[in-house]
């Protein structure tokens, strides 16, 4: 059997990799599956077919894995779709590493299709779509090359270059056709199946807004610059950096490890009022983006009214009710990929009044301390406060002290019995949750009512609105000041409150966010209604005034991003032109390989030869001169020329035979020349 075309196998394996990637971008596959497949892909690309010799053993292993996965499924530890996807990945891995024959190729492509379908059930992300297209292109090329390879008779080279060009054109045409189909064909939505993650790279935000606040844990908090929130404020503050507190929820109960709330879910309404309104309210129109991943409404401190909520799901856009939870948290009742809502907040300098909107149980918790609080905490607080009785002044004093004596770090301390004592007395370094918790507990230990608030801090200007990033997640303290209500005090050093990611990365991600927003609006959420609107827009001139289109275009990346893209496209075009102009390497044919070896042999035996004298010319010259090598060279040259230009391919082993004959002739010639050379060298040696 002939050796399969290497390029085809590489394309096949890359296609399988793209299909696996389509599942992997959902971030739901187990880590071991990722590791196994990545290792497989690397091995397969290096042409190491591990399983080829142990097909049965690997099949057995696969069976065992299937049983294990089944157990996981029945025990409820894993989701059915995730199990199916992981198993499909394993089958693909096994097929990729086995002997590359026709059956294995077909099965690899089939599992690739399965994996793509699995990826569709897991996420409808833009990166998924890219992987899907990559799979389609690579698998098509590989399959087509397979067909060409089968059609070419044995021993002939496969005309890869000649085939790839029309093939690429065909694939590009097919992709364009698929896009047209997508736009024009009535939409059927089957995205309701399976657990959809919030789209985006890595569903669980590493540094973001979480449901509970738990101190401790190990590792480093990754600064995540993905945009989670976009808001338009009226009246517009007009500043570049808002530096405002966006509150999500507050916590009143600390058990030494974790902050929770005593109160649970309360009323569900279209609109929830947290605070009686004053005459000047700050209106926010907020969009929670998929990277946010939660259901809690975020608004500027101090929220007054939240409502008019709309949930965007893959199946469409619906208005949602909101539910009040303990800790003044307002949640969406629907689960969706993104949300929009409106919020009204009291201006930062407004007197909040005495209305607290708290349940009795919550008010009771404002002075509660964990059961096993280190006695040193209260002593420390007393020492720092030195008899200060005014709550706000006490909080400021403690804040100044914390900011002076404690360092900010994103390194987590690891699990400990008492993370607070660990922060206060041992490490003397921590992140915002440590600072906020310390301030709250220190205040409570001295009889001041306080609670922990979490949300985001910051807000960067973008296209007339403000954006907040996942890395802007923050925790701070609310101190209850009699007559003023809760006042925000932030113990975290000011320079560490906002996202720590680099500016460049933020810019790149902002671009990505903008593109992804486009993708969501015009692809994932593209519905039958959109199709209808597109059709009617084509028939009739758009009725919308220019203003409406302005708000739409504000989501587009700025002009310099387009310029950069244009520049990149230009460079790609230039490079491709340059590559196309480079002299094409002629296909290496069998006859050419024979010629290379003949040249190498002639050079090894130092056969005298003019510069760039071809074998044909050399043979003609030798034959004319009656050179002894001509006898061996003439038939060889003739066969080479026939095979290369005459269309009469070399037979199996013929090249070897011809080369052996030539080598014997060369050796005989060398032996004949050697004594002559010795004779010539002899006298001079004696003379000297």
């Amino acid at each position, binding site marked *: 059997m002939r050796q399969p075309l290497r390029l085809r196998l590489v394309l096949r394996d890359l296609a399988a990799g793209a299909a696996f990637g389509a599942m992997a971008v959902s971030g739901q596959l187990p880590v071991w599956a990722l590791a196994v497949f990545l290792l497989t892909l690397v091995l397969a690309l290096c042409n190491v077919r591990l399983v080829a010799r142990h097909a049965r053993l690997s099949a057995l292993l696969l069976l065992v894995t299937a049983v294990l996965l089944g157990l996981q499924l029945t025990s409820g530890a894993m989701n059915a779709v995730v199990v199916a996807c992981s198993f499909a990945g394993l089958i693909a891995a096994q097929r990729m590493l086995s002997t590359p024959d026709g059956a294995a190729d077909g099965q690899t492509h089939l599992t690739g299709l399965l994996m793509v379908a699995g990826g569709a059930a897991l996420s409808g992300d833009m990166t998924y779509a890219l992987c899907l297209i990559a799979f389609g292109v690579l698998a098509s090329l590989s399959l087509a090359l397979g067909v060409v390879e089968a059609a070419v008779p044995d021993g002939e080279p496969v005309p890869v270059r000649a085939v790839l060009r029309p093939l690429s054109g065909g694939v590009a045409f097919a992709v364009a056709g698929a896009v047209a189909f997508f736009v024009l064909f009535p939409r059927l939505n089957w995205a309701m199946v399976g657990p959809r993650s919030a789209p985006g790279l890595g569903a669980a935000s590493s540094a973001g807004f979480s449901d509970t606040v738990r101190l401790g844990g190990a590792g480093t908090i990754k600064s995540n610059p993905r945009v989670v929130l976009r808001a338009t404020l009226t009246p517009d503050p007009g500043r570049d950096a808002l530096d405002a507190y966006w509150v999500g929820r507050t916590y009143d109960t600390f058990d030494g490890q974790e902050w929770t709330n005593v109160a649970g879910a309360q009323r569900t309404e279209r609109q929830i009022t947290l605070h009686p309104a004053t005459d000047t309210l700050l209106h926010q129109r907020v969009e929670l983006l998929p990277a946010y991943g939660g259901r809690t409404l975020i608004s500027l401190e101090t929220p007054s009214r939240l409502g008019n909520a709309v949930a965007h799901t893959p199946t469409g856009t619906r208005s949602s009710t909101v539910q009040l939870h303990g800790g003044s948290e307002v949640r969406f009742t629907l689960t969706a990929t993104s949300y929009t809502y409106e919020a009204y907040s009291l201006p930062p300098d407004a007197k909040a009044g005495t209305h607290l909107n708290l349940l009795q149980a919550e008010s009771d918790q404002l002075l509660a301390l964990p059961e096993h609080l280190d006695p040193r905490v209260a002593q420390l607080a007393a020492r720092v406060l030195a008899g200060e009785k005014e709550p706000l002044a006490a909080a400021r004093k403690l804040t100044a002290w914390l900011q002076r004596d404690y360092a900010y770090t994103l390194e987590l301390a690891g699990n400990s019995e008492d993370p607070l004592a660990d922060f206060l007395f041992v490490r003397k370094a921590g992140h915002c949750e440590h600072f906020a918790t310390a301030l709250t507990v220190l205040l409570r230990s001295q009889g001041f009512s306080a609670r922990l608030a979490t949300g985001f801090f910051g807000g960067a200007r973008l296209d007339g609105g403000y954006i907040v990033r996942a890395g802007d997640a923050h925790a701070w303290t609310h101190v209850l000041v009699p007559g003023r209500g809760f006042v925000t005090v932030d113990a975290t050093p000011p320079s560490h409150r906002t996202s720590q990611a680099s500016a460049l990365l933020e810019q790149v991600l902002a671009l990505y966010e903008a593109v992804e927003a486009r993708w969501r609006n015009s692809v994932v959420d593209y519905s039958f209604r959109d199709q209808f609107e597109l059709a009617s827009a084509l028939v009739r001139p758009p009725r919308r005034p220019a203003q409406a289109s302005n708000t739409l275009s504000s989501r587009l990346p700025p002009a310099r991003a387009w310029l950069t893209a244009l520049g990149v496209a230009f460079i790609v075009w230039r490079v491709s032109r340059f590559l196309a102009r480079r002299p094409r390497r*002629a296909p290496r044919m069998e006859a050419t390989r024979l010629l290379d070896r003949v040249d190498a042999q002639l050079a090894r035996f130092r056969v005298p030869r003019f510069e760039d004298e*071809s074998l*044909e*010319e050399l043979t003609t010259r030798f034959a004319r001169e009656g050179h002894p090598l001509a006898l061996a060279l003439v038939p060889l040259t003739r066969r080479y*020329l*026939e095979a290369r*230009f*005459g269309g009469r391919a070399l037979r199996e082993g013929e090249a070897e035979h011809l080369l052996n004959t030539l080598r014997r002739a060369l050796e005989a010639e060398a032996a004949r020349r050697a004594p002559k050379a010795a004779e010539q060298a002899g006298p001079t040696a004696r003379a000297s």
Partner: protein
Amino acid sequence: MERLAAQLGRAVQGKPSEVQRVVTCVVAGGHLLLEDMPGVGKTTLAEALARACALSFSRIQFTADLLPADILGAQVFHAATATFSFRPGPLFRQLVLADELNRAPPRTQSALLEGMAQGQVSLDGETHPLPSPFTVVATQNPVDFSGTYPLPDSQLDRFLVRLSLGHPAPDVEARLLTTRGAASPLASVEAVTGPEELASLRAFAAEVKLDTAVAEYVVRLARATREHGDLERGASTRAVLALGSAARAQALWEGRDFVTPGDVRAMLVPCWAHRVLLRSAVQGVSARDEAAHLVEELSRKVAAPR
């Protein structure tokens, strides 16, 4: 072909490679331009060719006052029947030796060249087909230019191969001197083939396989001449085709049914040296040598397919 070459070799002694080129040119179905000093055997070669192939032969000595009618023929009035009838001129032969072509005025030259290109002659609104095979062997004196009309480049292009015989080697010349007296060398040339066989040989040559790699090589060579800095004009498409058919005939000569890069290189200079136009103002022999040298140099620069 070998028999043919052997017969020609009898007539023109000591020039095996030139004789071979002549045979190749005839087999390829092309016209031949011999450019040489007087008295080195050009005419002998042409006559020997006609004899060996058993072709009808005519020799036209081109002079400054030669008119188209002199070579094409004319309508002649027959008094007896009171009609005009066409009397074919000396061009209506299978092999025509156009001696000193550049001495005739352009009108006459172009009449000949039209016949060479079309295989027919138009006269007074009537077309008269030329015999088949039809081959022209033209000669030119490259040294003596006085009173000549140099052939335009477009017409030089119509000759498949340009050759110069050069002086024979001293020993051959000495042998000529000793044996020539006995009999004309032409007398010893025997007809070894006929027009039919020549036609089938040409058909064979046309069948010779030309691999795409070799074709690309020829095209690369042509592009190299077109992009060369010292050349005013490179090889035309007709030149590319001519080289192809010459290389095919060369392959047939070598006993192969496919063309190799070696065949192309062998026919490159005779086929192309007269088709390229130098940028410099040199004329005559030195221009010819210069062009041959440039083309030769290009053939070394352009990598042959492996």
